């Protein structure tokens, strides 16, 4: 489905990613775990094309995305739910949903109906401005908006940040359900271990722009991971 090969990128002249390679298959969910400043968000932003890659390739379903601008990558099938959710604050919830579909020239009414079926809690919020929603509601909307564009791959950047535990559990079920029904591949950046445990088929540990190691489901479930990740990880202090 998606293959990232030896990706190098950064901001200005400061390198952040230092040769990342990974693949995510159709319907698979791969988690990315790492401390702040290790390049997790940069990896997602480079895949979307919002940051230019200095080197390396991104391939989606066999099509090379390297020379595409971010809107072309979106049309090729990449859905992005960024950190901070980036809801259009002055557009209503309904308009935010329509935007996701219209941006890809898909019919807006069908997209709205499907989104409300998958996220019924948005129904009573439809006419509210996006900026007036709570963090959890915005997160659901950001997810629903990305899905109205019918992506093949979903990039999620810390979806549980600042969200109450009850909604976190609901999101695990919702995303798991989407994977099964739509066959969407998910690349998930997350600090919340419970969330990653609930969703990811495998986890890549990222450190200083490189993939340190890969953990399978058994290794993710191991309680000692908590110790390692929160306590004496490879590097607990960062300069960023």
């Amino acid at each position, binding site marked *: 489905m998606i293959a990232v090969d030896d990706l190098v990128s950064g901001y200005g002249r400061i390198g952040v990613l230092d040769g990342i390679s990974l693949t995510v298959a159709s319907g698979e969910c791969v988690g990315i775990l790492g401390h702040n400043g290790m390049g997790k968000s940069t990896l997602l932003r480079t895949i979307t094309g919002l940051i230019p890659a200095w080197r390396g390739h991104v391939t989606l379903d066999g099509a090379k995305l390297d020379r595409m601008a*971010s809107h072309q990558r979106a049309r090729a099938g990449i859905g992005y739910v960024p950190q901070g959710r980036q809801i259009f604050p002055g557009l209503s919830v309904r308009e935010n949903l329509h935007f996701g579909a219209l941006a890809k020239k898909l019919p*807006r009414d069908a997209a709205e109906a499907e989104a409300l079926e998958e996220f019924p809690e948005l129904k009573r919020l439809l006419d509210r401005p996006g900026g007036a929603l709570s963090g959890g509601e915005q997160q659901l909307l950001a997810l629903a908006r990305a899905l109205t564009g019918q992506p093949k791959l979903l990039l999620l950047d810390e979806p549980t940040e600042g969200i109450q535990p009850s909604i976190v559990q609901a999101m695990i079920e919702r995303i798991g359900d989407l994977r099964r029904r739509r066959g969407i591949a998910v690349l998930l950046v997350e600090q919340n271990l419970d969330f990653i445990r609930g969703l990811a088929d495998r986890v890549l540990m990222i450190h200083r722009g490189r993939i340190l190691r890969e953990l399978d489901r058994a290794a993710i479930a191991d309680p000692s991971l908590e110790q390692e990740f929160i306590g004496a990880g490879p590097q607990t202090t960062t300069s960023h």
Partner: protein
Amino acid sequence: MDYAAVVALQILSGVATLVIVSLGLAVVFGMMRVINLAHGEFLMLGGYTAVLAYGRGVNLWIALLILPPVVVGIVGVVVERLLIRRLYGRMVDTMLATWGLSLALIGGVTMLFGNSVTGVSAPLGSFIIGRFHVSVYDLFLMLAAVVLSVAVWAVLKFTPAGLLARGTMQNAEMASALGVAPDRVYAVTFAAGAALSGLAGGLIAPISGVVPTMGTAYIAKAFITVITGGAAMLTGTLTASGLLGTVLTSFTFLTTPVFGEVALLIVAIVLLRLLPRGITGRFLRRAL
């Protein structure tokens, strides 16, 4: 009583003129944060299009209302391609470049058509209130201001293109991550703004006279209106035009046109001192 009615009509027509000449600038500034200092010359090109077309026997209404926005819209497409696109996000550079463009347009038109006033006489005649003649065309301008405002609002609010434009205005990066090409949105927006400026030029041609330097008479007022209005392009332009147009016309009536413009400037300065982000920077912030 008759006098009061005439003054009221004049104030309304002053407000309407301000709305008409500011709307194109407001759309481009509101959507793209680009201040087009050649806006006045876009009006002038619209005026010339109307006068030249009418002089060659084109139907008056087609010459005033159809050809100017088409011609100036095309000019807008070219200017965006050659100039504006290279300067996105650099507001001061854009102002300099468009100012240069305005000088070039004034020079070019003077060379082609000479530095003399041409025009078309106001159609529709006049009607009488008591001892006063009132031009029907003034009423037509009020209607035009209302229709244009409603049209801009409806396009932004109800059409797919309007929705994509509003979202892109709020967060261009997210819009592109969802599949919208911001460059494309900006190009269309600039062309639409230019077309509105051209239409404004056609609309005011019968009341102002058409001359290569006519833009300079309007750019200052339009600029002040847009800045006073603030971020919400339509609400801002309407509220600022309402306020400044009333001040301008009232003082012009009480004293002279010169003091009218001085009063407009003073009100705008005081207002911007109190509300640095314009009227809609403080009130009606979620409005369009």
